[in-house]
């Protein structure tokens, strides 16, 4: 049975008794191979590597912040091994079948240094280019809360195994919502960091301008612990920026008093179904009762940031996978192919204009927005979670308008490069999780974590678990 222990509990037990690290890693591998496979969430485990890493960790005098903590990650995170025996690195796609990682992702190296035990790789949507989680090649992960429903994408496998209690955390990547949508669908905490805070080096690329890396966990404190290990400058990532290292849990229990929180009624709540918006408005009211100062926020031009984000992803994805179009396009599913093809028509001049418009929009929008509030609040999913069958574009082309709406509340945040934390605050009419998204000024992750922790205490979602997978 999955343990559902938090990262912090596991580390404490490992510190008291290092001998339990290897046994725990063995259990996690077993659960990934049984429960994780039943959920169609796992692509790869390497017991020899994982158990050797667990043994090394147990024998080490250095007890890092993730000492002996078992984690598993989205398949896009490379793990290179000697003699070209790297872990599979297929980008969730038959078109890269058999490719292995030539380089270990910087984020993985940082987790290794912090003492984490790497237990395997988890299903991603093909090229990370989809929001529902459907993948006809690697498998479509099932939501542990109700296996007929989607996990969201593209970090779908990461969300499924964390929600099932197999590991306390997993890394995902977020270009238009791919950490937050699956985290929200599965009742988890997800962090999309500020652009440039975490290195993407060694991660299977989708969009250099927009890709970010972040954790999915069951608690805010666990997410803060992982973020503290990952943040920092890396010269091998051309978007990485210099910033002071921080302990993101430092202010975690600071509460909401004095924080200025905006409710994004315009575009975000008004563009979401009323049952979802009502839940988020209720969270906002509760924050005010807990001492936050509140006001409505309207972000001029936000409507256009969503489709412009789609264009930027498509253009950069077409650049990354350019040769695939000639050699392996028949191996792509139709939706991936169409999204990449749409980006191929962008000229160099249009691409330069797109980048300039984005920079202009960021420079114009952020000072005014964050002069009035420290953060603003939105839903993550704009409507109740869909079923796997009901949102399968392959079998149900009529689902296209619904699927296009899914990233409504997340893509603008990527376009603006802002940090966001999402966490569960209730259930929809079908009993699936509903989450709030807190979006802050650049590099204010510590403040978002503080607010998220205060909301988490109120809603106590930590104690609520999905039914066991049988």
């Amino acid at each position, binding site marked *: 049975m999955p343990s559902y222990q938090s990262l912090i509990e596991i580390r404490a037990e490992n510190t008291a008794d290092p001998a339990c690290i290897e046994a725990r890693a063995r259990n996690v591998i077993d659960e990934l191979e049984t429960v994780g496979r039943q959920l169609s969430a796992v692509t790869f485990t390497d017991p020899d590597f994982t158990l050797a890493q667990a043994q090394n960790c147990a024998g080490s005098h250095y007890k890092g912040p993730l000492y002996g903590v078992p984690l598993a990650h989205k398949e896009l995170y490379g793990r290179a091994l000697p003699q070209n025996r790297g872990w599979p690195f297929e980008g969730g796609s038959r078109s890269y079948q058999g490719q292995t990682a030539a380089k270990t992702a910087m984020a993985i190296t940082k987790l290794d240094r912090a003492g984490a035990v790497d237990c395997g790789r988890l299903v991603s949507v093909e090229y990370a280019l989809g929001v529902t989680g459907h993948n006809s090649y690697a498998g479509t992960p099932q939501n542990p809360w109700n296996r007929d429903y989607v996990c969201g994408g593209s970090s779908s496998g990461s969300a499924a195994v964390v929600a099932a209690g197999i590991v306390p955390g997993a890394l995902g990547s977020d270009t238009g919502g791919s950490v937050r949508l699956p985290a929200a669908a599965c009742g988890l905490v997800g962090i999309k960091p500020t652009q440039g805070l975490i290195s993407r080096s060694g991660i299977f690329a989708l969009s250099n301008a927009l890709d970010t890396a972040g954790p999915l966990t069951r608690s805010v404190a666990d997410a803060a612990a992982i973020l503290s290990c990952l943040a920092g400058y890396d010269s091998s990532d051309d978007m990485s920026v210099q910033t002071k290292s*921080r302990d993101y849990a430092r202010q975690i229990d600071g509460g909401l008093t004095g924080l200025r929180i905006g409710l994004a009624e315009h575009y975000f709540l008004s563009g979401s179904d009323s049952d979802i918006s009502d839940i988020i408005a209720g969270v906002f009211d509760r924050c005010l009762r807990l001492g936050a100062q509140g006001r409505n926020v309207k972000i001029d031009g936000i409507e256009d940031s969503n489709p412009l984000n789609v264009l930027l992803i498509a253009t950069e994805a077409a650049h990354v996978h350019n040769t695939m179009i000639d050699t392996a396009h028949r191996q792509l599913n139709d939706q991936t192919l169409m999204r990449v093809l749409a980006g191929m028509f962008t000229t160099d001049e249009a691409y330069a204009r797109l980048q300039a418009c984005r920079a202009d929009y960021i420079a114009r929008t952020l000072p005014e927005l964050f002069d009035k509030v420290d953060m603003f609040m939105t839903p993550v999913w704009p409507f109740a979670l869909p079923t796997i069958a009901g949102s399968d574009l392959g079998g149900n082309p009529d689902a296209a308008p619904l699927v296009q709406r899914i990233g409504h509340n997340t893509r603008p945040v990527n376009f603006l490069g802002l940090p966001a934390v999402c966490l569960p605050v209730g259930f929809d009419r079908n009993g699936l999780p509903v989450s709030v998204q807190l979006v802050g000024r650049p590099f204010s992750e510590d403040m978002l974590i503080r607010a998220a922790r205060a909301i988490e205490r109120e809603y106590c979602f930590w104690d609520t678990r999905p039914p066991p997978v049988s």
Partner: protein
Amino acid sequence: MSDKEHIQAVTERLSRAGISDAHISLALETSQNLHELLARYKLAGHRTPDIRDIFSRLAARQDEAS
């Protein structure tokens, strides 16, 4: 190369690769809709810094404040 010539070149390349006309037309239509939106965006006259420079400055400011 003009935009028209670029579209023509991409279309021919995709056809040679064996991609159906229906797929190409739909992708082109999607692309054109998005580019129309991009064309409507009113850029400020001055030169805009690149994204990394913006975020580097914001990181330094946040470091000073904390």
